[in-house]
């Protein structure tokens, strides 16, 4: 039988959620869940949820007992679920699981394509790489050495370097993926790698919507997971 949440527990529940929000903010873990700009709203919200229930409990300490009939629904217990889940599972940044499920998508064409910089190898985000590969009429990627970074996701015929992107929170995340043609065994899933290689131009006869962009790698090296795991 579910018990209605009493006053003291209400204070406890809200305080714990506040502490939880503050904790993920201060650890920088919020970037796994939401966009970076949410830091300040979350910090304010967490502080608020931590402090207000304690203030209230103090202000109402005298009439605690009369308030018993004013419980809140049993569903309030569920508010502890995200805290428990976060502690028990310690949610990692989304990675190969999402990339392998969504199969990769191409970002929207972003208007004008600025000419590529002269660097060699040229560092590009996966989003930029895919935009140029898919939409650039001048094919300026051709024969350029590029440097891509991301995590490893597997495909039936090899592996890809991938990055998760999102527009609001991790629930609307999708993956940007570039297939990697490389010699040697394929790296383990979710290993972060830096790939230096050249664009493999797809067959022009292929349907642009189903084409899988790829690089031929000359060097693949392992790197540490960046502090901002997603790309936007």
């Amino acid at each position, binding site marked *: 039988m579910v018990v209605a949440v009493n006053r*003291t527990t209400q204070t406890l529940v809200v305080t714990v959620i506040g502490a939880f*929000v503050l904790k993920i903010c201060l650890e920088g873990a919020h970037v796994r869940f939401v966009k970076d700009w949410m830091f300040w709203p979350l910090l304010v919200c967490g502080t*608020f*949820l931590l402090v207000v229930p304690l203030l209230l409990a103090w202000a109402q300490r005298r009439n605690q007992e009369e308030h018993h009939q004013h419980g809140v629904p049993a569903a309030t217990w569920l508010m502890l679920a995200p805290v428990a889940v976060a502690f028990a599972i310690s949610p990692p940044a*989304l990675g190969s*699981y999402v990339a392998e499920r969504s199969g990769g998508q191409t970002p929207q064409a972003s208007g004008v394509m600025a000419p590529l910089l002269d660097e060699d190898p040229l560092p590009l985000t996966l989003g930029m790489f895919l935009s140029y590969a898919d939409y650039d009429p001048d094919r300026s990627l051709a024969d350029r050495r590029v440097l891509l970074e991301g995590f490893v996701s597997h495909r039936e015929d090899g592996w890809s370097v991938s990055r998760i992107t999102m527009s609001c929170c991790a629930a609307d995340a999708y993956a940007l993926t570039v297939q990697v043609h490389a010699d040697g065994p394929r790296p383990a899933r979710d290993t972060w790698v830096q790939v230096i290689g050249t664009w493999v131009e797809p067959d022009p006869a292929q349907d642009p919507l189903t084409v899988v962009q790829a690089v031929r790698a000359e060097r693949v090296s392992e790197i540490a997971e960046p502090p901002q795991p997603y790309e936007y």
Partner: protein
Amino acid sequence: MDGTETSSGRSTAAPATRRRLLGQTELVAIILMGTLLSQRWLIDLLDFRPLQAWSTMFVAIVVQALPFLVGGVLLASFISVLLSERVLAAVVPKRSGLAVPVAGLSGMALPGCECASVPISGSLIRRGVPPAAALTFLLSAPAINPIVLVSTAVAFPGQPEMVLARFVASLSVALVMGWLWLTLGGKVPMRLPKLPPDAGQPKLVRFLGSAQHDFLHAGGFLVLGAMIAASINVLVPRQVVDSVAESFWLGILVMALFAFLIAICSEADAFVAASMSSFSPTAQLAFMVVGPAIDVKLAAMQSGTFGRAFAVRFAPLTFAVAVISAVLVGWWLL
């Protein structure tokens, strides 16, 4: 971590639960401590990729919604406790029929997400605003505010008709539901949670108390909705949804259902809709009109704030009206 210590420290100091040796407060504190201590062992045990993806999405929906929910309950509490009768009477038209369009358009002024609008409309009704107007506001605020319209324009570059269609369709849903409520409302029970009694406390204490009360009422249901939405996200592969895109009517229905089940923020749904480019524009519109009006998280929150009897009637009706509105507007504009 520090929060758990603070809180369990408090629970021993509270006299109200002393009567039983092991009250619920102590139980919750013990469970939290237990989870904390066994964390290392649990993480290894639960190392399973789909479960990890689920947990990230679940926590993400809750974390994204919390600041909006807190903002919403503060505004709701402001309306409930601090707003004077005079100001309220001046703002809200006396005649309900007229209050509905006013409420619909004033939804444009609140750039929040849908989680905030549930407690706000609850508090409006508490203060004597006609329920029809408050519900219109509930439906219009998350759907047609400037942030949502701008993000729609960004997600559909070069298709301003999509923004217009979204605005028209969502506003019509809000208005139609408001006017429907005027005629049918008497038959649907609506049970608003009672506020804690005014025990002669200072206004600030009542303001914060009412905010915390609303937060607890809506929060549990928000979490429930987030759990369902994250499960759908992980369990239903995009390809299954995509496979019906060819069929016009089935596509609309599937996109509408999908919007109901995955419950993403109205600020983000345009990007998801745009990414499902194999669907007809009308189906994409249905996705964006249904989502902010009603989804699994909102339905759960409504049953927490207005009562279950209300939610089981209001939610399906909203869904139907939203789909019809999207189809008509899509046929007209897209």
